[in-house]
């Protein structure tokens, strides 16, 4: 032991190592029962994208949304392996994928929720995949090294991935981690977590190893059932190496959501703020109707053509005039906006609405009325 090493870094290292041994049991999870269809979101989609990327069919971002890029990858796969080319991922395709690819649930999900950068999910050693630059060594790789008695403290990824290149055998120490001569800091007697022997990859974890707790799924995601397929393949197989794509482009594992064609999530947010400010006390259908009026105005020749143009038009909405538009909207308002964008219009194509108890303008009463929803009268 080098005397120059302070106690604190050592402690940190021990903790980190303990943590990594704790969480690095290779999880080969399996798809749930569902047939995965274009437009779906959730854990099954993350797995599908990761597995397709593993065998080089999918090069996009692993984002948990079955969008167009994933759809083309699935169709290519189906075409190549003689399945029906319909973009639906059914039991047969899932079984084939599970056989031919490897999926480290824990690891990918960690990246997924932390928005970690890494370049390509494939069968080559993960140290080459983990971030173009300066990402941590993946747990699997750590394990392997520990067994060879050379565990390394995972470097904390530099923000923006701007740390110097990771070269095998010559790790750049994380800031604060002292570099031992030779580049590798030997693990000072791998910390023995009571009752735990590090499992060799490919073996079922020793009893007492916690089965990786499925991450708490994001709202609206189906947690993958915790059943474990016995890992048949080596975590680091040598078969069909995929050319390692080391593109230094942005993150390609990142959570995403569906947005309706033609609007960004921020547009939806602005409209949700307007709906919330104008109609938060109204029944849900009244909120959809208010959102529909905003969209009807965007599509009308006599009003501005953008959500913000319509909403911030002077005197158009009271919530804008009194600043209530800057309140934090709730999920209901957002859903009302999505419903309206998807074509719902309970107002009957109205361009105006008003509250008869508080309306100050006589002119508004002259408009042809359509219906009353909650407190608002909607009119042409």
């Amino acid at each position: 032991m080098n005397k120059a090493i302070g106690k604190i870094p050592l402690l940190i290292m021990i903790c980190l190592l303990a943590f990594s041994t704790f969480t690095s049991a290779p999880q080969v999870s399996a798809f749930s029962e569902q047939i995965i269809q274009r437009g779906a979101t959730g854990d099954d989609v993350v797995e599908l994208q990761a597995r397709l990327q593993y065998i080089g069919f999918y090069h996009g971002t692993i984002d948990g949304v079955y969008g167009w890029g994933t759809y083309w990858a699935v169709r290519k796969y189906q075409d190549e392996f003689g399945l029906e080319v319909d973009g639906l991922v059914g039991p047969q395709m899932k079984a084939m994928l599970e056989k031919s690819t490897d999926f480290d649930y824990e690891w990918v999900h960690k990246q997924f929720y932390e928005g970690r950068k890494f370049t390509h999910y494939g069968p080559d050693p993960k140290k080459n995949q983990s971030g173009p630059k300066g990402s941590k060594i993946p747990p699997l790789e750590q394990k392997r090294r520990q067994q060879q008695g050379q565990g390394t403290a995972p470097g904390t990824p530099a923000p923006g991935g701007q740390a110097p290149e990771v070269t095998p055998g010559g790790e750049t120490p994380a800031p604060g981690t002292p570099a031992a001569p030779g580049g590798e800091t030997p693990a000072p007697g791998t910390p023995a977590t009571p009752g735990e022997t590090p499992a060799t990859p490919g073996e079922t974890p020793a009893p007492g190893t916690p089965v990786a707790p499925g991450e708490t799924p994001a709202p609206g995601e189906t947690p993958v059932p915790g059943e474990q397929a016995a890992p048949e393949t080596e975590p680091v197989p040598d078969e069909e190496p995929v050319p390692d794509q080391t593109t230094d482009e942005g993150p390609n594992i990142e959570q995403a959501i569906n947005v309706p064609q033609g609007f960004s999530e921020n547009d939806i947010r602005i409209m949700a703020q307007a709906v919330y400010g104008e109609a938060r006390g109204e029944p849900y259908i009244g909120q959809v109707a208010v959102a529909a009026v905003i969209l009807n105005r965007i599509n009308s020749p006599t009003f501005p053509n953008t959500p913000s143009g319509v909403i911030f038009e002077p005197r158009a909405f009271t919530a804008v005039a009194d600043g209530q538009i800057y309140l934090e909207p709730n999920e209901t308002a957002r859903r009302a906006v999505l419903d309206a964008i998807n074509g719902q219009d309970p107002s009957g194509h109205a361009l105006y609405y008003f509250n008869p108890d508080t309306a100050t303008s006589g002119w508004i009463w002259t408009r042809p009325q359509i219906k009353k929803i909650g407190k608002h009268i909607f009119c042409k």
Partner: protein
Amino acid sequence: MLRTILVAILGVAVVSTAYWGYQEHQEKNSILIKAENTYQRAFHDLTFNLDQLHDEIGATLAMNSKDQLSPSLADVWRLTSMAQMNLGQLPLTLMPFSKTEEYLYKVGNFSYRNAIRDLEHEPLSEEEYQTLNELYKQSGEIQNEMRKVQSMVLQDNLRWMDVELALASEDEPLNNAIVNGFHIVNEKVEGFSEVDWGADLPQLQSNDDLLNERLNGEEVTAEEAKEIALRFVELENAEIHIEETGEGLAYGSYSVRINDPEHEANIFMDISKKGGHPIWLLQDRQVGETNISLNEASEKAKELLEKNGIEDMQIVDSKQYNAVGVFNFAYLKDNVRVYPDAIVVEVSLQDGEIIGYESSAYLTNHRDRDVSQPTISVEEAQERLNPSLEVMEHHVALIKNDLSEEVLTYEFFGVINNDTYRIFINAQTGHEEKIEKLDNAEPVYKSA
């Protein structure tokens, strides 16, 4: 002694209050001036745009060479958009200035369509020239009126803030110089004799007028509408309220509210009087967690359509928003996707219940139509595509083009640099009718 201290304290309090009040007053004034300035800028920009518009239309008339005409018309289009934008920043929303806005929209539309067409091969017709002349005259009149208002604003130092106040107060008729000036402009526009915009200007007919024309069947009574509604949501003996819609809607319909005891939520729907068609449905319950897959939910959506005798529909798009699945259907005739006949169904991924249904496009456009066959082959159509587009999938589809005509097209899905595009090539002429970039999923931007 005590009195002196009290007086001193009081004196300090009065002085500091006065100072604070003065500060507040100053601040309020400066904010008012800022707001006034934005209004003034929008107004003067607007009059400047209308000036330019008049000159630019004049320039197109004076032009002799065809290749100069296009940029000039494009400029007219640009100026109308800018004028519309500036109009939208003035506090005129609650006064009938809409004729002028509509007029600007039509001028913009006319100039845009003629700017993009190939004037070499298809020069302006005599009628279109006539229209341009007419527009020149009219834009001159508008310019004149607006200049009057502008000079009044400048000479009498009129404030837009006062317009706001005048509009907000209830005195009718409004007595405000600016408002009156705008009224005069609007009346002028209304008085313009109907300009011949050319046969192919999309009708500004609203959706509900069209729907009213197309609805078929016998009138149904409120009682019958109740039965239809209950059958549609498959409930029996639920509490149900029904109302008729007002005059503002071109088609007569009943608004129905059903109390769904099972989910403790209300189901709302509109049912047309003519024919008793369910037009839309919405459930107002909040959806929790996902228990069924998007794929299972799509089966539920299909079932709903089949149960209601809406046949030959195909899912053309599906998307999951948290625990709600949204499915877009189009009518399929002889393997041709008929996009105008569209229905949207929303299914809860919690329990597979239908929570939304929207069919006004379908009711407006659907009829038993004869779909013609393409006259050019897929290969020929594909030759019209950008060579760097990798085609992934194609269909034959009927769409409404920019001129609101139904055209038969080849629909190509293709990829350029990881972005997916949808391109419609006319199956008779080979024209590119429409190109859309299909949005990818959006990353979750986390504010750190």
